[in-house]
């Protein structure tokens, strides 16, 4: 398990900093079509803010119900990405060709813009949840005190 940081300064400051990091992550995610950034980087920043929270406020995997559920969220981002690709198949389109998304009243180029945005959200979800799930997996292992290395 990961123990909470015992400094009040760190805890109070991180209450301000973590939302700022998440705001920046969402900015990078949604600004990725106009500047550097995008789904992967935005997802990593959001995931890092979650890890920051875990490191500061601690995590007891035996008490937290989220630990068991986070693995289910692991596939959610992939499902969004592949699901958008699958939606393009409706109406005889090609897989992952966003111009075939059946959205009435939308130009072809706007459909592709929309498809890029949706898939970037999928990638960001996948990366963020995977980052926090790896940290939760690590927190499940207790520190091995044996000096001669792991014995199991």
């Amino acid at each position, binding site marked *: 398990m990961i123990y909470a940081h015992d400094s009040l300064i760190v805890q109070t400051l991180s209450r301000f900093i973590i939302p700022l990091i998440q705001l920046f992550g969402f900015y*990078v995610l949604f600004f*990725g*079509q*106009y*500047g*550097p*950034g*995008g*789904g*992967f*980087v935005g997802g*990593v*920043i959001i*995931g*890092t803010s979650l*890890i920051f929270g875990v*490191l500061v406020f601690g995590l007891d995997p*035996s008490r937290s119900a989220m630990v068991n559920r986070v*693995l289910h969220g*692991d*596939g959610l*981002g*992939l499902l969004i*990405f*592949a699901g958008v*690709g699958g939606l393009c198949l409706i109406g005889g389109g090609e897989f*992952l060709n*966003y111009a075939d998304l059946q959205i009435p009243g939308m130009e072809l*180029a*706007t459909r*592709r*813009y929309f*498809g*890029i945005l949706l*898939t*970037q959200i*999928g*990638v960001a979800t*996948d*990366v963020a*949840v*995977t*980052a926090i*799930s*790896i*940290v939760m*997996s*690590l*927190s*499940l*292992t*207790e*520190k*091995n005190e044996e*000096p001669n*290395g*792991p014995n199991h």
Partner: protein
Amino acid sequence: MDEGALMNFLANVSLLLLLIMTAAGAVLVKDLIGAVLILGSYSFFLALTWAWLGAVDVAFTEAVVGAGLATVFFLLTLFLTVPREKQGQLPRVQWPVFVGLPLLGALLLFVATDLPEFGDPASPPNTHISPVYLENSLKDTETPNVVASVLMDYRSFDTLIETVVIFTSGIAAALLLWRKKS
């Protein structure tokens, strides 16, 4: 050599020296936490190099993943083990290494003279398909950032499989580390 080219050369050389020094430091330092932090600074200098070459997206990813996320993962893993490299016998360097490695390096340097000059507009990567993306990205997808449109639209199959790789890493970590309480 005029002043701008000299500055460019000096910046390139100093970045390269910093990269080599941090990479060697990460390998040589015995204290593993120090090695992880040096590796993070190596990623930072690599990100600076990418930004210097004009690949801002790659620089951003390298800075966030290499200097941020990977460092946190390494540190969390180190907290579960002994943060000190074991004293072991270094393997003896055999004599073919001193002959083979310089030969290989000379061969690589010889071949590198055939590579197109950096930024050459007539080089194959700049004439084959990149102009198609650059000209059509805004018209086709309303996305000014060509990197985003190439990654998520023109080459979205690659990105889908990369997302599968990330998913697999999360699942693999869970499979290796989750144990039922005995």
